[in-house]
């Protein structure tokens, strides 16, 4: 409990303008780092008269906040963990909203030669075979879980001096990778928004397994009577609306679209 409280206090609270109602939503660092929240929150406030306070944490911690009833909803990207969250009765349901993709970043001279590989699995096998530095989030986040699943798909157990698990958010992990001139997996949005690229470049993308689905999960009011279920319902409807689709699909950095809206009505 103490650990959870500390994390909440360390959390970045991003809020929109003053509104009649306030709710809390735990979101992933990768979503927050993308900058999309800055586009969506003011529109939500204007349309729904609802202030959404974001608790920015890794997916694992976001789910823990939901389980504890510290937030009214979560927006994360780790399907298996999300389905378990709903199955355990902590969330009422899971609704897919949008996706972006993960990319493999590394030194511009690409010592493991992953740029020419065909699949994410082959790229990771090349990194492991060359035992060149790889930085992992190592923080139980959705991105970390995804990375581990990709290593498993590649039949590689990532361990050894070359594999550096930093236990940090996406920005800090990218900074570490830039400092070590190492490989790292990042969501595309965080990478595009990252300002300290050093000698790192995007080396591999496009394998469908790098698909990164974001889903909205309202916290179950039967578990925690104090959660603002009505506000969460209104927010979900807005996130699945045509207006949200336009804003999400239209959000670009450096001319690149970061997210693809795919909520079903």
């Amino acid at each position, binding site marked *: 409990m103490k650990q959870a409280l500390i994390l909440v206090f360390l959390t970045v609270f991003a809020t929109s303008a003053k509104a009649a109602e306030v709710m809390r939503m735990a979101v992933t660092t990768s979503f927050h780092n993308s900058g999309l929240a800055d586009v969506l929150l003011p529109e939500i406030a204007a349309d729904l008269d609802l202030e959404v306070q974001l608790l920015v944490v890794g997916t694992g911690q976001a789910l823990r906040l939901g389980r504890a009833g510290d937030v009214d909803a979560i927006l994360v990207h780790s399907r298996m963990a999300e389905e378990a969250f709903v199955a355990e009765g902590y969330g009422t349901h899971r609704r897919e909203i949008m996706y972006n993709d993960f990319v493999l970043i590394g*030194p511009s*001279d690409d*010592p*493991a*030669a992953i740029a020419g590989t065909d699949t994410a699995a*082959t790229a990771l*096998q090349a990194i*492991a*075979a*060359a*035992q*060149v530095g790889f930085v992992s989030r190592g923080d139980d986040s959705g991105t970390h879980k995804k990375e581990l699943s990709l290593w498993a798909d*590649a*039949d*590689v*157990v990532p361990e*050894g001096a070359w594999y550096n698990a930093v236990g940090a958010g996406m920005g800090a992990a990218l900074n570490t990778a830039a*400092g*070590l*001139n190492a490989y790292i997996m990042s969501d595309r949005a965080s990478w595009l928004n990252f300002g300290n690229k050093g000698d790192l470049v995007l080396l591999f993308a496009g394998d469908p397994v790098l698909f990164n689905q974001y889903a909205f999960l309202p916290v179950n009011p039967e578990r925690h009577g104090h959660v603002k279920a009505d506000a969460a319902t209104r927010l979900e409807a807005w996130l699945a609306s045509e207006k949200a689709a336009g804003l999400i699909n239209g959000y670009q950095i450096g001319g690149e679209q970061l997210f693809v809206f795919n909520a079903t009505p």
Partner: protein
Amino acid sequence: MVDLFPLTLESAETSRRGKRLIGPLNLTLSGDGICVVMGPNGSGKTTLLRLMHGTARLTGGRVRWACDTETARHDQAFVFQRPVMLRRTVEENLAYPLRLRGVARAEARGQARNWAVRVGLGEMLERRAVLLSGGEQQKLAIARALITEPALLFLDEPTASLDGRAMREIEAILTAARASGTRLIMSTHDMGQARRIADHIVFLLGGQVHETSAAESFFAGPETAEARAFLNGEIVE
């Protein structure tokens, strides 16, 4: 087979966060056989191998091959002290580099079986590689590197922490590779091993090439006091 040698390092160095790890190095390696890189802990043996192989960043100077760098890198392999095994069978691990190069599955499988026999793993084809002993994993890693018939094989402390039997078997594999024309550049802490298999010695100290000579003359009478002290088992820094 493409001729990679002579390999020349010209004022080559690598630094990280402003700290020079090794160099500037001037070194030319030519000829055949096994070149052993020796030196005390922290002298830069692993970094030198990585620098030559291209997996450590060159921050100054250059590494020059007899052919173009891309061809040279394609024709070499690296075996680490703790190799990464794919969570697959011995046979699948051996076939993997061939499949990556587009070799048909049946052909790759046949070569994998041949190599498994050559390195003494013929009875373990279906065994999961991650469940092998340290010595067996190292033999598999060397066979997996040699299966593509590279012109050059780097090995970083390939027998560290292995027992005498595994060490003997691996040295036999390495000398067989030498006999078939593969050039080997390896680091070792083991003086006895260097005496047994080295044709050429590069002695590193403090990130610099301190002495380089034919193995026979190095062990018979090193040129420098530091190398003599190292061979006598003294602490050298």
